[in-house]
């Protein structure tokens, strides 16, 4: 039966690798900027874009939904570029407000069109286990482009490019694996790398994320836990271990 389980888990595993490939380096930048909730805000606004498109009577099909989501995410990114320039120290607060306002606007619009809620759910509550290999291909192409931009340009300096790349990346990943897993993939490996203070934090974060996904997938399979939640908790548990190791080291020193 082992092969059966492998067969079930491998699309989720590939989805995880794709998400990690882009989110680990972007997560480091997000952590450096101190704007950790930006992914939640961008994802929520992308969702709002879909709900508005639905509200305006666009028949939702694959492409119009993606266009609406990406357009809304880019508008949000544009707004956040502007606020970072003018309200630099308050950026985190602005991001929080964008998140709750987008979420609340969606609730108001649902009153007019409850089916928008379903589209939103599809968009924000992606489930890693439901991923089909066909879904992975466009994301693979997109993320290859994202990584090329990441290595070619210094996104830490290029503010506009950073926000644009980030908006597109997150809009794709939340549909694949859901907001919780996106947040965890972005922040936890980068956080763990900070905690252990490695010389090559990016490499450490990649390995950390990789091990977390594999252990989370296995744990979910053995214990029959919801897969996305199991991976998030595994990553968090591993970060806790790094924290303990660091504390033990400093006591010893």
């Amino acid at each position, binding site marked *: *039966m*082992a*092969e*059966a*389980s*492998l067969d*079930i*888990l491998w699309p989720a595993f590939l989805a995880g690798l794709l998400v990690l490939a882009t989110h680990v380096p972007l997560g480091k930048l997000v952590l450096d900027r101190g704007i950790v909730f930006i992914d939640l805000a961008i994802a929520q606004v992308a969702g709002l874009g879909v709900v508005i498109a639905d509200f305006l009577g666009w028949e939702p099909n694959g492409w119009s939904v993606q266009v609406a989501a990406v357009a809304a995410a880019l508008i949000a990114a544009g707004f956040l570029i502007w606020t970072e320039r003018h309200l630099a120290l308050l950026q985190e607060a602005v991001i929080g407000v964008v998140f709750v306002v987008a979420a609340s606007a969606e*609730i108001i619009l*649902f*009153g*007019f*069109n*409850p*089916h928008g*809620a*379903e589209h939103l*759910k599809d968009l924000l509550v992606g*489930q*890693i*286990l*439901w991923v*089909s290999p066909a879904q992975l291909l466009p994301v693979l192409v997109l993320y290859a482009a994202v990584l090329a931009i990441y290595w070619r340009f210094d996104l830490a300096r290029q503010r506009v490019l950073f926000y644009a790349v980030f908006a597109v990346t997150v809009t794709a990943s939340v549909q694949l694996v859901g907001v919780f897993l996106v947040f965890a993939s972005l922040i936890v490996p980068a956080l763990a790398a900070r905690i252990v203070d490695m010389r090559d934090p990016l490499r450490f974060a990649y*390995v950390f994320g*990789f*091990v977390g996904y*594999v252990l989370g*997938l*296995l744990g*979910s*399979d*053995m214990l*029959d*836990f*919801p*897969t*996305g*939640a199991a991976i998030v908790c595994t990553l968090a548990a591993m970060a806790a271990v790094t924290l303990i190791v660091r504390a033990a080291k400093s006591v010893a020193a």
Partner: protein
Amino acid sequence: MRKIPIVTFLFAVFALGATSLPASAKVNVFACEPEWAALTTALGGEDVEVFTATTARQDPHQIQARPALISRLRGADLAVCTGAELEIGWMPVLLRQSSNAKVQPGAPGYFEATQQVKLLEVPTRLDRAEGDIHPQGNPHIQGDPRNMQIIAAALAKRLAAIDPAHAAGYTERGKAFDEKLAQAIQGWQKEATPLKGVNVVIYHKEWIYLTNWLGMHEVGTIEPKPGVPPGSAYLAQLLEEIPQKNVKMVIYSAYQDPRAPEFISAKAKIPAVMLPFTVGGTEASRDLFDLYEDTIKRLLAGVAAHG
């Protein structure tokens, strides 16, 4: 290049840690909801091995993806679901991921309960503005035990067709179940006489089969449209209508948040009655017979409390 051994190692762990399915000559049944698991167990007895995808405390409209769901459906000989789009959010994707030809829609191994009975509340016009509605009609058919009788007969036949070696057993248990249920229905209907003509407010539109059976009337819903939370103006109007329409109680199900019905209950001074909705929804509802028994007991208590 140091990642390669890690990959190999972890794949080996994958293989070791994989779940195994019980290997047996039994018919493996994947039941989407607890009521169908209970019914299949009643009809299949020792000849079936039943896995339930959702619990009574879960909203069957949406569930979290777990690996066992796919592996169980992959190994299933028969899937028993409600249908009528109740499981539209997860069953199609699960069927795709399972790639089990035996249980795909149209195959003998795919059984939809709603195909067997006449659905109520079929929308006359399909408008997305009307809320989360099911175009084929209201799928929550388990509220009426007379539906259960019809579905049991069809399911017993299906089990016999899939597992001809034990056909006699399915037929026999099917007959016994039908007789027992027919008799119980007589008793419940007598017991439920005080409920006839009682007006109720419901949370979500999922009680029409129950209220229809017992002769109760749904005169209002807490959700203005299925799946949409109420606003204050709507609630104010609902509270005004409750005494006008002589509403005796608010009904909600075990998997729902009790806060909205409790709010209405406190404001309108009528009892809020939590019903099991499916097998396992309350401690007392261990099988289908307990389910109807407990539902009627709770409704009668609600009427009595109102005086």
